[in-house]
């Protein structure tokens, strides 16, 4: 069935993959190996002494109900961020795809937020929702809603989700938009001639044909929500109020770089690595089946 193009000999293919292997080794395997190794110790911050504790760090973490609770917080946060980053992006892409005039301007404007660093995005949203001077908080106050994410955990969660997802909408938009452009017009036109209206065409033709892009974005966004959002959390809530926005990666950061507890921090990154690895495997095993390439 498949037509295979193969290399003769080993040298050329090895040379071709060497840069990727090298980069993975230096920036992934080496640090990940270090994290696994360090997770077995309780070191002092200055690296003067270090005690082997075996799985002690993992035991310490998993017996802590607050750490276990942050798994649930992370799950809620990641699902919300992924949804909030993908659904509006798809919606905007569909709208932009239908545009004839000025499409370039819209696209450029929609991509802008992606250039804003997460920590800066966090500060921007914090300003808007600041309980005292924030514009949005003020309007909510006019409507009789007393916004206070400093003490209200659900509001804090909502705010960090929106701030984290905002910049990602642009990224996802780009991919969805490119995906939509790649769908052959003839297929859609044929459906239209058969009498299928816009939404029916969208759900029966566009969405299935877009599934490879959607699947790719799902994986990438989940990874983003797990790993890259700590800047937003750090600037907006520092994990609070109480522990309502303490996601796993934020705890890795704060225990390691604020608390100087490198053993626990390493153990947490190992746990995080395993969790995301499992998630990705699950995604590929069960969701990819429904993807049509």
């Amino acid at each position, binding site marked *: 069935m498949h037509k295979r193009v193969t290399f003769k000999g080993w040298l050329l293919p090895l040379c071709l993959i060497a840069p990727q292997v090298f980069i993975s080794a230096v920036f992934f395997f080496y640090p990940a190996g270090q994290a696994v190794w360090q997770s077995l110790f*309780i070191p002092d*911050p200055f690296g*003067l002494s270090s005690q082997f504790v075996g799985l002690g760090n993992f035991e310490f973490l998993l017996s802590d109900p607050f750490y276990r609770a942050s798994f649930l917080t992370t799950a809620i946060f990641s699902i919300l961020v992924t949804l909030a980053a993908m659904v509006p992006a798809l919606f905007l892409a569909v709208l932009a795809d239908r545009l004839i005039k000025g499409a370039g301007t819209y696209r450029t404007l929609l991509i802008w937020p992606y250039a804003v660093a997460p920590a800066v995005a966090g500060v921007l949203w914090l300003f808007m929702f600041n309980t*005292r001077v924030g514009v949005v908080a003020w309007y909510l106050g006019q409507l009789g809603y007393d916004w206070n994410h400093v003490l209200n955990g659900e509001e804090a969660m909502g705010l960090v989700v929106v701030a984290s997802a905002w910049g990602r909408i642009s990224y996802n938009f780009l991919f969805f938009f490119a995906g939509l452009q790649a769908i052959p017009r003839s297929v859609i036109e044929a459906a239209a001639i058969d009498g299928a209206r816009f939404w029916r065409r969208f759900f029966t033709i566009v969405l299935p044909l877009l599934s490879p892009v959607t699947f790719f974005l799902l994986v990438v966004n989940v990874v983003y929500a797990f790993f890259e959002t700590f800047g937003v959390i750090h600037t907006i809530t520092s994990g609070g109020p*109480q*522990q309502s926005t303490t996601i796993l990666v934020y705890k890795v950061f704060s*225990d390691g770089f604020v608390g100087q*507890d490198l053993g*626990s921090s390493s153990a947490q990154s190992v746990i995080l690595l395993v969790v995301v690895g499992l998630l990705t495997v699950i995604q590929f095993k069960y969701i990819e089946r429904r993807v049509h390439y």
Partner: protein
Amino acid sequence: MKKLTFGAFVAASTILTPLAAAAQTEIQFWHAFTGRLGELVAEQVETFNASQSDYTVTATHKGNYSETLNAGIAAFRAGEQPHILMVFEVGTATMMAAEGAIKPVYEVMADAGAEFDQSKYIGSVKGYYTAPDGNMLSLPFNSSTPVLWVNRDKLEEAGIDPDTDLSTWENVGAVLDELKTAGVDCPLTTAWQSWIHLENFSAYHDVPFATQANGFDGLDTELAFNGPAQVAHISAMGEWAQDGKFFYAGRRNEGGANFRSGECALFTESSAGYAGIKSEAQFDFDVRPLPYWEAVADEPQNTIIGGASLWALEGHEAEDYAGVAAFMNFLSSPEIQAKWHQDTGYLPITAEAGELTREQGFYDENPGTDVAVIQMTAKEPTDNSKGLRLGSFDQIRGIIDEELEAVWSGDKSAQEALDSAVERGNQLLRRFEQANG
């Protein structure tokens, strides 16, 4: 082999001799100050460099307190550590436990043969940074203590005598009632809740924050701030929060914006808030001593400090440390200290500097600026009021913040929250003990 070594020695000495004669010894100093404070530090360093010709101090800003400490630790691991590192007070136990990474200040001074009279330093300031044997391990640099800031105009508008006695929480409670009745949205707010309402509260009422003299006597210390005095205070604050009399603005000093804009009537914040409040407040304000509960103590003990101190790091040449000693003695001199105290609102670290400030008439021209000094020095510190020496304390403060938020939002009672904070904090103390034991 011998020849080679000798040759190398000759070569090295010929190369190095002229250099050593010409160049001054460079002293690296890493600090955490930006803005106005950064300028003032730079000014101190310039004055020192101009005052003598043996040493050049190079000051480098390394980010906020946590980032500066991290930079110092990372540099030490890489063998590139500065001579002097600024470390905030909660990092004290981490530094103290790092034997082999730090060189205690009293040793630096003794080795350099520098004059060093430890009794010149104010007890309650240096106490935070001394070993159980009374020797100073680091040099206090910027120290402040919490006080009560009063918006006099707000009190007057609410029909309250602005000179009313606010020295006890009992009186403050009554004033909060009146403010609330008068329709004030924010009767009371605070900055740094753990530092002011638990750490300083405990010292001020002479009750332990942790066992083993708040950690001064050993790493096997356990938290003890869930005692009846603290529970009563947090309980009262919790009720005030529920009744809209205490407005919680955030974990750090977010409340400062609410006070400076004139929204809040009372504000518990560091004495170093002076510069900001003075420049921004469009109302008449007062500095008052931190209130205490008459029901808990007949009269208050002293409060404790917050801020940072300077640590000398190991791994440099003996003559470098002579430079470190000279710089530290320069910083401690009455003139430099008095200027620093008056420019920043931080406490003077020596009694002489305080007296000089008084002689110069600063306290008369700026009433209230001596409240913090008096509050710190009125009494000889006890085991409960020398300070805190707890490992992983930055994280423990984070836990306390979380639990206090549960009280302010009404999710937990004060007793439940403080019990939980003690239990969670103790786990971190045990880990710290294990890592450094």
